[in-house]
């Protein structure tokens, strides 16, 4: 279909979303998008969900850290913020989402709030509560694996001084 004249096109806002999870979590853009839709529908209902019209544009997540850009309709950013706050797991992996900022263009959003790809973590052996553990480290964040089945404790460099 012929694209709309400029004044009739929807106005968008772009949310820079920080995603944090345990290091063993792995999910892709589609899974994240699905959870965003569910979160919006569950909190705002069908009408609110259609109003906000949230779409995940950029998505990067690995080893427990990542970010995404979520497009929403202008004027619906508060509703979108609420829906995103209620997103607490993706495919069963617990996540923390935080909105770093909102921009009027994707490019501004990337440049201002996102920067480069998530930093690659290091594996280290640490002593946590008198036991040898392996930890996934993004200084100063230490995610300590306390059981082999993937139970983690979130710590920081301060806990290993």
């Amino acid at each position, binding site marked *: 279909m012929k694209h709309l004249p400029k004044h009739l096109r929807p106005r968008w806002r772009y949310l820079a979303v920080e995603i944090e999870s345990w290091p063993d979590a792995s999910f892709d853009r589609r899974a994240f998008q699905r959870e965003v839709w569910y979160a919006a529908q569950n909190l705002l209902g069908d009408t609110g969900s259609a109003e906000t019209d949230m779409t995940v544009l950029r998505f990067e997540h690995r080893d427990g850290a990542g970010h995404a850009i979520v497009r929403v309709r202008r004027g619906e950013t508060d509703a979108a*913020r609420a829906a995103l706050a209620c997103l607490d797991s993706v495919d069963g992996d617990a*996540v*923390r989402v*935080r*909105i770093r900022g909102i921009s009027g263009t994707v490019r501004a959003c990337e440049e201002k709030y996102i920067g480069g790809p998530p930093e690659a973590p290091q594996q280290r052996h640490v002593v946590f509560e008198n036991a040898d553990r392996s930890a996934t480290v993004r200084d*100063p964040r230490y995610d300590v694996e306390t059981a082999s089945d993937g139970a983690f404790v*979130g*710590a*920081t460099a*301060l806990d290993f001084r």
Partner: protein
Amino acid sequence: MYEAVYAHPDGDSTVARHALTAAESGFDGIVVRNHGDEPADYDAEAIADEYGVDVAEGVEIRAENPSRASGFVGNHRSEATVVVVHGGDPKLNRFAVEQPAVDVLAHPMRGDGDFNHVLANEAAANGVRVAYSLGPVLRESGGRRVRAIKQLRKLRELLEDADAPFVVTADPASHLQQRAPRELVAVGEAVGFDAETIREGLAEWGRLVERNRERRRDSFVEPGVTVEREEGGDS
């Protein structure tokens, strides 16, 4: 604005990790409110210095009946800056709001807990802050969440009517469960709160911490009365 967190071993993140995350999210401080039987081991000052957020030592008292709870309040009151009572049982809710020594009644509507105008008036009279827990709104779904939102509304109507003090928290048990103040405000608005109420509720923790620290100083006698040492004097 403060968040009240459960830290390892009561939660999945250490106090330091909670503090780091809270600092990034824009909180001014955290209150560590581990349950009395699972205390965390931490150096509040070192963490506060490193991450630039206040770390207040609190405790959440969980007891099966009011008489045990009363004993625990007595034990913890002298060391803990913030004393929270683990609500959710009609008797304990009643106990908490009748005790001026209690700072906060947490999640009063959890389980078979309930709240009414009598408790709200008691809470107002004794200055016990009742917590609006946004945790279930953030992390539950379906019927449980609907119930939680309904109960929040009931609690809000009662507390507003009695003009009782309140706090707001997401009850995070790991750094992943923390949400930034602006996010909590947005969620609060979506479930019927004023933005101002949520901000006030988050700020109230900070005022509570400050007041209790003031009270624990040696020079404190009673509200408005302190002992001033004279310069160079020997008193």
